[in-house]
């Protein structure tokens, strides 16, 4: 049922879809992370803001993606921007929550020692708190990335989609091969991203690999 010749002959188009998929994902996670870092820091320091922030991002998360993209289309059209607004919104809940949890996870005696040694609050953030929060934050980025890869396929319905584009075209043209290309491709991409980010997480945190007593 899979037309391998078609695949062989259209590697360029498939590659383009893949590229678009990666582009959409990386942009969304990148922007989402930047926003989440700021909001997460605020939420962690100014505790009462955490409730409203979590509630808002949670609400966004609950809205089914198809609906969210559908909402946006009349305003921003069938564009990269529409896709990105939706995709970024979905990353916020996970990333903010992980930024806060990561910062909360810094052992209090380490923070106390850092204050007592005379590090300013910016120095503490950069040299102590963020490095220690890294494992949790990167775990959040991993989940957000894999999730986003999945959501990008949905944006096929608004003309973006990356590999999702192949799925929708396959459906439209009743051509199963394209569907498979899209399905298998997006699954593979998700797994690769997951494994790759796990390796990066391990590289960034050598002290967690060192055997403990």
């Amino acid at each position: 049922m899979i037309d391998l010749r078609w695949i062989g002959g259209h590697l360029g188009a498939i590659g383009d879809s893949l590229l678009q998929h990666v582009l959409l994902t990386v942009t969304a996670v990148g922007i989402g992370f930047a926003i989440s870092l700021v909001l997460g820091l605020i939420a962690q320091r100014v505790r009462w803001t955490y409730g409203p922030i979590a509630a808002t991002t949670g609400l966004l998360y609950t809205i089914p993606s198809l609906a969210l993209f559908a909402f946006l289309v009349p305003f921003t059209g069938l564009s990269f921007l529409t896709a990105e607004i939706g995709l970024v919104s979905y990353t916020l809940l996970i990333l903010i929550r992980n930024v806060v949890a990561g910062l909360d996870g810094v052992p209090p005696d380490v923070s106390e020692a850092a204050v007592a040694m005379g590090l300013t609050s910016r120095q503490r953030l950069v040299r102590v708190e963020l490095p220690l929060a890294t494992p949790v934050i990167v775990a959040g980025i991993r989940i957000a990335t894999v999730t986003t890869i999945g959501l990008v396929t949905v944006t096929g319905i608004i003309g973006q989609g990356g590999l999702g584009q192949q799925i929708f075209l396959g459906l439209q043209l009743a051509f199963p091969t394209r569907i498979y290309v899209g399905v298998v491709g997006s699954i593979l991409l998700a797994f690769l991203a997951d494994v790759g980010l796990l390796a990066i997480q391990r590289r960034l945190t050598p002290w967690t690999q060192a055997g403990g007593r």
Partner: protein
Amino acid sequence: MSVTSDPADPPAPPTSSGGAATVAFEHVTKVYGRARKDTPGAVDDLSLSVPAGKICILVGPSGCGKTTSLKMVNRLIEPTSGRILIDGVDAATRDVTELRRGIGYVIQSTGLFPHQTIGQNVAVVPRLLGWSAARQTERTEELLGLVGLDPARYRDRYPSQLSGGERQRVGVARALAADPPVMLMDEPFGAVDPIVRDRLQNEFLRLQAELAKTILFVTHDIDEAIKMGDLVAVMQVGGKLAQFGTPAEILAAPASNFVARFVGADRGLKRLSLFRVGDLTPARPVMARPGDDVEEIRRNLADDPIGYLLVVDEERRPIGWVDPIDLPATGPLARELATPMSPFLEPQTTLKDALSMLLGADVQAGIVIDPDQRVLGSVTVDAITEVMRTKGQRRGPRHDPAGPDESR
């Protein structure tokens, strides 16, 4: 002392006795909220003065405000009223970050940065102060050596790979890194087992003998207070100072019932903690090496009050005791005759701990050794209890690591 110094480096403070500051509390009070003065952690009108280069212990039951008082020195907690003067300057008037970089801080859980190596941890404050990389490395190696950790082995490891005792040594090294004139220590040896704690205490006292820093030390353990302190401040719940004086004064003349109760009913026995093995003149047992002539040994033993032979090796390290009855008539001394029985005592070991060890091992005499494990002499249970009988309040020299007698 720095060989490689960058002209841009801040001026290097002398690496040994980098200067110690005086610390004075003047009517310091801390009240939490609108609470009464007796809330745990509060401090009520604390006034005391610590001379430079001395260890002042803050001791008392939980909630007596000792940790609060400590934390007011580096302003982790701000006093409600009163002043804390460091070398005559009110701490409140100084820039807080700069103040803290000049105060060493050691806590029970060490607070070592888990994500940095031991070397990086020790160099935190020097790095903040802008020292060059070369100087940081040099100082790190020096300090690790000072606290008894081989720099080559430890510098690149992570805190999670070290034992509790090793981590605490790193904590002390880190606090000493920028050679601060004041050190604050909050139950630093509380989280390790008693054997390790005793060793750490002894080593710390040896270190202090060289560096002579002004140290404020919090503990809830009166025995530790007596062993470690030049001055002891006993505090009671509500943050009041119950008594402030030398350990001998606290033991001999408790100022109130509270102090007497806190010190404990075994005050007499505790007085033994005021003295150390090094304060006594060690007895000289007859010593011999394996292979020495037995007949000569027997002659030496004839008048010896201890009556047992101590067998040592070429380096004068102890191997064991021999009962003269077990000696053969002639020939060279056989190593196998020696039985190791005695606990090893260091000059810093308090008489109280020494007596404990001797009674525990059920032997009459312990062997006093120097840092290289060589025999300095022996100390008997009788010699120790003799001290108890003596009324002398005078404390022997405490910080002399070499002991009273250099043998040979």
